[in-house]
C-alpha cells in the first residue's frame, strides 16, 4: 500500500474531475474537524480513506489487507483509471451534473440499462454532451453514474425511447457483479 505517484494522481484526478468538476478540491482538503482523507494504492486498486485509518492499516500484511475505507476504482494495465460503483457516494456528494429519474426508470437502471429520455425527471442546467453525471432517484438517493449522451439542451428534443445517459455503474451491480466487484 502506498500513496499515488504524480502520474497516477493526474490520471485519477482527471477522471474524478469529469464527474465532480471544481469540487474535486473538497476531496483533498482537510475537513473542518481536522481529519483528512487520502488516496492510497493497494495492488492496482485505489482507496479513499481517512488518513488515520490509512496509517493504521500499514501494520497488516499486504496480501491479507483486502479493503479499507472506500474503494474508488482501479488502474488498468494500460494505465487508465476505471472508476468503480463504490465511488458513488463520493461522486454524489461532489457531483457537478446530476440527473433525476422517475420511478419507472429505476428498475431498468438497476438491471443495467441506460437512462432513456422517457425516464428523466429533471436534468442539471447546461450539462454538456459526454459529461460525467450522477443518477439519482426522485428522493435524491444516488443509484449510479454515467455519461450524458446529449447535452441537456438537445435532450429536450429527443424522442422518448432514445438514450439520455449511458450507464457506467449502477447499484444493481452489488447483486449482479457480486463475485467480481471486489476481486483483486
Amino acid at each position, binding site marked *: 500500500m502506498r500513496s499515488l505517484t504524480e502520474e497516477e494522481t493526474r490520471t485519477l484526478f482527471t477522471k474524478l474531475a469529469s464527474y465532480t468538476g471544481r469540487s474535486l478540491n473538497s476531496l483533498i482538503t482537510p475537513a473542518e474537524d481536522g481529519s483528512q482523507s487520502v488516496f492510497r494504492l493497494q495492488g492496482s486498486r485505489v482507496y479513499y480513506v*481517512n488518513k488515520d485509518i490509512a496509517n493504521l492499516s500499514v501494520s497488516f500484511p499486504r496480501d491479507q489487507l483486502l479493503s479499507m475505507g472506500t474503494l474508488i476504482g482501479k488502474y488498468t494495465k494500460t494505465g487508465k483509471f476505471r472508476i468503480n460503483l463504490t465511488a458513488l457516494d463520493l461522486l454524489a456528494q461532489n457531483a457537478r451534473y446530476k440527473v433525476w429519474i422517475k420511478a419507472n426508470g429505476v428498475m431498468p437502471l438497476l438491471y443495467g440499462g441506460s437512462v432513456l429520455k422517457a425516464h428523466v425527471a429533471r436534468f442539471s442546467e447546461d450539462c454538456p454532451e459526454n459529461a460525467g453525471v450522477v443518477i439519482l432517484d426522485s428522493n435524491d438517493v444516488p443509484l449510479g453514474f454515467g455519461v450524458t449522451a446529449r447535452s441537456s439542451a438537445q435532450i429536450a428534443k429527443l424522442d422518448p425511447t432514445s438514450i439520455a445517459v449511458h450507464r457506467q455503474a449502477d447499484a444493481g451491480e452489488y447483486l449482479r457483479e*457480486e463475485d467480481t466487484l471486489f476481486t483483486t
Partner: protein
Amino acid sequence: MGVGRRMKKQGPPAPLDESKITMLKKRKAGGAEAPPKPAPAKRRRSDADEAVSKKDAPKKKKVNGAAPKADSKEPKKQPSVTKKAVPVPMSDDDEDMEDDDDEFGDLDGISEGSMDSDDEVEGLSDLEDDNSVVDSDEEGHTRGAMFSDDEDSDAEERLTAANIEGLSRKLDAEQQEEEEAAEQEMQEAALQTNIAAPDVFADQTQQGLAPDLQLLRQRITDTIRILGDLKTLGLPGKSRTDYIDLLLDDICTYYGYTRFLAEKLFNLFTPREAFAFFEANETPRPVVIRTNTLRTNRRSLAQALINRGVVLEPVGKWSKVGLQVFESPVPLGATPEYLAGHYILQAASSFLPVMALAPQPNERVLDMASAPGGKTTYMSALMRNTGCVVANDASKPRAKGLIGNIHRLGCKNTIVTNMDARTAFPKAMGGFDRVLLDAPCTGTGVISKDPGVKTSKNERDFLAIPHMQRQLLLAAIDSVDHASKTGGYIVYSTCSVTVEENEAVVQYVLRKRPNVKIVDTGLGSFGSPGLLSYMGKTFDPKMALTRRYFPHRENVDGFYVCKLKKTAVTPVAKSDDAEPRSKGPKKARSAPSAASTDDESVDKTPIVDENGHAADFEGGAFSSFEDPEDAERIARAERNRLRRKGLNPKGVLNKPKKSKVSVSEKTSETATPSQKEETEAVASKRTSNEPKSEKKTVVKGDKKQVTTEKEEKKTAAKGKVEKKEKKSAKKASK
C-alpha cells in the same frame, strides 16, 4: 436435509382413527374426573325425575345437540393451553396439537362442566361419541353412584300408590348399577396407575416399518407427561432412564437429529422445554431487517418499504433500528432501497452482541470473525463512521460478501483483513478499545436456518470448535487495551446453545486470564441468564450476567452473549500460554482435547525432570545429542517447514536466521534440563539417538524414552561396536 416435517402441512387426522387410538385413555380420563362433580348432574337428575319414562329420549337429544358445541368449544380452549407450552405462534399446528393432546382436552371440558351444567353434558358427550353402548351405561352408574342420597329423599316425597311399583323397581336397578359402578371403578383404578405407560412402550416392536409420525408424536408427548410425574404415571418396572431413552429415540426419528446431538440438546432443558425447543427449531424465525442509520432513519425506511407493499413493524422495544417483516411482495434482498444501502437483512439475534459491545465514536474496534458484515456495519453505524473498525475474517470468499456489504452500507471507517485471528491478533495490531468475537460455532442455535446441523455435527466438532473458540477469545482479550478510557471491553457471542461453546469457554478464559471479569451485557432483562452449573461443573457466579437466547423462549435464534472487561495487563507468567496458543491450529488438528492442550505441555515437563535420576540409566541412550548432526537435521527440517509454508528457504534462511534460532530454542525448551544433566553425566557415551526432527513435543519425548530403553537392551546384547560402525557409515554417506 430440506425442511423439517413440521414445516410441511399436516392436516388434522381423521377423527375416527384418532378416537380408536385414544379411546381408552379418554374414557379413563373422563371416568377418573367425572365422579367428584355432583352439582351439575344433580340438576339434571331432578329433571329426569319429573319425567322418568321420557328420560332417555330428551337426554339423548340434548347430548346430540350439545356434541357439536363441545367440538366448537374445544379448539377455542386448546390453543391457550398449547401456547403456554410453546410460545411460538403456530397457527397451522394448533389443530394438530389439539388432537394430540386430546386427553388434556377432555380434562378441560370436564373441569368447565363443574361450572356449567351444559358443559358437563358435553364432556360426557365426548365419551358417548366413542362408544354409545358403554357410555350410556357409564352415565347411569355415575349418576346412581353419586346421587343416591339426595334421590332417596326426592323419591320418598313423591311416593304415591301409582308409581310405587315403578319407583321401587327403579331403586333396585339403581342399587344394582351402583354395585356395578363400584366394581368398574375398582378396575379403572387398577388401570389408572399405568395410564399412558403401556402405550409408550407398546409400539416398539415394529422396527423395520417406517414410523407413523402421528403416533410417534403422540408417544413423545405422552412420555414427556410421564416424565413430568414419574412417581404416579410411570410403570413400576421402568426407570427414568428408560423413559428418557425412549424419548430421545423418538425425537431422533421424528425430527431427524443424530442421537448424540439430540442428547446434548436435551440435557440443556427439562423434557417439556426440550420438546418446545425441538419444535421451535422446525419453524422459521421472523425476517428482520436493520436500518442503516448512516444512510436513512427507520421511519423513512419503513415508509419507503410500506409503499412497496411490505408489511412490517418495529421488532421490539429493545432495538431502535430493527424492523420485523411479516410479508413482502418484492424480494427484500433486491429492492432499490436495499441496493442503495438503506438496510441489511440481519437476524434479530445478531443485533445483540453489537448492542452489548456498544462501540463509541472515535474508538478502535475489532471484529474478529466478521463475515458477512451485519455486525460490522452495525458497529460502524453506531460509531457514525468515525474511529476505526478492523473487520477480520479467516475465509477469503466470505470476506468478499463482507466488503460488498461494507461498501453498500457506506461504512468508511473499516479495514478488512483476511487473517487467522488466533495468531494474527494482537501480533498484527493490538490496543483496541473494544473487541467483538462472534465466534465460529456448531450452529445449534440456528437449526431452523440450517437443518444440516442436525446430522453433520459429531463429537469431534464439540471438542475442536470450543478449542478454537478458546484460542480466539484469548487472542481477543490480549488485543484489548485495558487502559482505554472509554472501553476495554470484549464481547463473546456464539449462535450456539450448548454449554461447551459458551459458559465453558468463558470459564476457561477467566481462569487463564485473571485480569478480565464478566460485566453486565447491558441488554436488560431480554433473554435468560447464563448457567451457573451444568452437569456437575460449576461456573463463576457472575456467569449469571451473561445472556442466553432460545428460539422457543424469545423467538430469536439460539444465541449467547457474554461481555468481559479487561482490567489490567495480562500477567507475564500467563504470557507463556500465548506460546502454545500460537501453534494452536496444528494441535487442534492433531489432538483436539478441548481444554487441556495448554496444560498438558506444562504438566508433562516435570516428568522428564523426575526421570533425571534415572537419566544415567535411561538417558544414557537418550541424552547424547550430537550437535553438528543435530544442526544439520534441524536445518533440513526448517527448510522443509518453510517450503511447506510456501516460502523460499534460501531467501528466508540466508537473511536473518531469526526463525531458525527460535526453532532451535523451541526444541530445547522441553528437554533442556534433562539434556544438560545428561550431557554432563554421560558426555563420553554417545550413541545415535537424537531427535529426528525439530518438531518435538513432549509426547514424542516419552515415546523416545521407551524406544531408547529397548535399544539399550539391544545394544547391551549386541555390543556397542556394531552400532558405532553403523553410525560412522551413516556419517560417511552424508
